[in-house]
């Protein structure tokens, strides 16, 4: 796969504060690459530098082979952007807003396929301001996609949406990937990063602390499978000890850690055979983040 985004030693400073601190990464064509981290980690600053909306303090960035410092106009013609807290002309309809962007890109032809792809055809004549939050985000993605960009930058596209609207948006992003587009995503939702991404970079305080394919990251930093019981006691502990020495007490019950799924399943079956309820928890990006950073992120994107 070709490299479509190349970032080397990127730094962005606001006065004395360093928002992005010598980060480097690259993004391959056709993949969904996610920059995940808490609020204030430098995600938006980074993505806006890639979108040519901010000037970097130092470092080198190339998009589709063009340097952002020299070829801004060429880059903008080939990328699509959904900014954080996206908005459109509120009194214009969905179709008018999408057509506006199509016109700016000089794109001729019908827009129906894009509106249908994003499930917006039925609401095309509704004014933007009366749409739900989820629909507004879809309009934003449609406006970004209508120029047929090679790379789509989605800056926190699901922040503030309810779970249902968030899942709808995920479906849309997956559809876009299926059309062959490269997607650069930022989010503070670990589940989103895990469900959508091919590769993930974890960013904290302007620095990338880990990067790689989602599966590899989970295997490497996820801390294995965990089996939880609601009750404790010597009998339960004895069962756990048959398979692992890593046992901790949690809320009156026990939690055992297992490297493989097989061992976790065995202990769970053993517990069930003695009428003891057990729950297997697979490791995910949340565990990866916890293991790497030592703290969790809440729904609002802040450290707990």
């Amino acid at each position: 796969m070709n490299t479509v985004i190349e970032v080397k030693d990127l730094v962005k400073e606001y006065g004395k504060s360093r928002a992005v601190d010598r980060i480097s990464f690259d993004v391959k064509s056709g993949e969904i690459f996610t920059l995940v981290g808490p609020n204030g980690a430098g995600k938006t600053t980074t993505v806006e530098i890639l979108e040519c909306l901010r000037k970097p303090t130092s470092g080198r960035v190339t998009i589709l082979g063009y340097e952002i410092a020299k070829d801004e106009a060429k880059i903008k013609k080939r990328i699509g952007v959904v900014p954080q807290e996206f908005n459109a002309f509120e009194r214009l309809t969905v179709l008018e807003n999408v057509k506006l962007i199509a016109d700016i890109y000089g794109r001729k032809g019908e827009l129906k396929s894009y509106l249908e792809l994003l499930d917006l055809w039925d609401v095309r004549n509704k004014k933007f301001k009366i749409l739900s939050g989820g629909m507004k985000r879809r309009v934003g993605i449609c406006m970004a996609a209508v120029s047929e960009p090679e790379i789509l930058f989605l800056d926190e596209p699901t922040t503030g949406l309810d779970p249902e609207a968030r899942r709808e948006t995920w479906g849309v992003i997956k559809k876009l990937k299926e059309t062959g587009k490269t997607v650069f995503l930022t989010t503070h939702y670990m589940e989103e990063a895990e469900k959508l991404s091919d590769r993930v970079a974890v960013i904290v305080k302007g620095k990338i602390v880990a990067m790689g394919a989602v599966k590899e990251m989970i295997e490497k930093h996820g801390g294995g499978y965990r089996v939880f019981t609601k009750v404790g006691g010597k009998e339960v502990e004895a069962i756990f000890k048959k398979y692992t020495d890593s046992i901790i007490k949690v809320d009156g019950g026990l939690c055992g850690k297992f490297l493989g799924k097989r061992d976790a399943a065995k202990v769970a079956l053993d517990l069930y055979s003695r009428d003891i309820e057990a729950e297997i928890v697979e490791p995910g990006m949340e565990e990866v983040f916890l293991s790497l950073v030592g703290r969790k992120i809440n729904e609002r994107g802040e450290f707990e």
Partner: protein
Amino acid sequence: MRNVWIVFKTLVKDWLRSPTGVFFSFLFPVLLLLIFGTLFGGTENTRYALYIQNLDVDESGNQTNLSTAFIEAIKSTECFDIKPLDKDVNISAFVKNQQTIETLRFLVIPDGFEEKAINKTVVVRMGIIVDTLVYVINNYSQYMNASDIANITMGKEMLSAYLNQTNATSPEVLLIADEHAQSTQIIKGIIYSVSNGFNNQLTGASDIVIPKSEDLQQRRWRAADYYLPGYIAAFIMTNGIIGMTTTVTEYKRNGIVKRLSATPLSKRDWILGCILQQTFLGFALTLLMIGFSWAIFGVRAIPDLYAVSLIFIGCVLFSSIGMTLGGFVKDIEAANGIGNAIGFPLMFLSGAFWPVEVMPSYMQTIAKGSPVYYFHQGLREIMIYSEPANATISFVVLTVLAVIFTLLAIKITRWKDL
């Protein structure tokens, strides 16, 4: 230019669907036009209320002929709504029962008005005869024989002796009005004028200097015509400066500018599109104001090609000033404040609503430094006096400023790091 047109179309559509935007851009100036138009160039003649108390009545209680004639002379000016006041009414008591005194005016015709007027008329006429006889003796005695001269001299001396014995006083009509009210001076002037005419009639003197007046309509223009260019200039200015500053700040605040800046749309095209949209609104506003002025005030000033060109340049100038202000203002409250702080003083100091000549001299200097002054002066030269050559300075000043502020708006507006 294609993108400028795209931005223009979008903004016009967005604006047309905003009821408050339409209200403040169109209806608000039209309402002010109606108010100012009525105040400074209204459709009707002003008539002042005037109570007349005639105390000059005969034994039967009927008003004397001369006092009635005097009242008729006042009526004939058509400046007053005359309300007769009974001779028994005590004016002081009457005034005490009124809530406001500014519009209270009384003209009291005294008892003996007719008698005194006749006596004074006789005395004045005799005085004229004496003066005439003196003039004849002094200048024409060489053409007369001695007996004629003696007869004339005797007649003059007899009349002089009679005049010396007579103590005829003039009847005094009394105007009671609030001396602080602006209208009082006007009313005094009218009453004096009527009195003079009445005196001339009584003494048989013919008018020597005759003031003539002509309806301004015969010279084509009415007051509303004169003020219309000022209104147009002032409202294009407020729409440009206040409207544009708040609009672009709002687009910046709600993320639309950032969204557009991520596309191939250039900052220059965005700004030119905004200015073009505001120019369109300016023209629409001009048409509306002329339409209203035509329908309500009967104005006849219609912009020609020169006026249209100057309006275009004015729209560009004030929109570009608005864009420049919007370029560095961050929040909508500040945009409103700065737009009003600049727009309103410019509007009232420019002389758009009243001639700058009535202002103190230092204010006149400030007014003449305002671009709105050049705008409405230029429009007035073209639309009222049909002298486009006299608007050359206006064209030059506005064009230079329009170019400067458009370039400044492009320079100042941030398209990155929003």
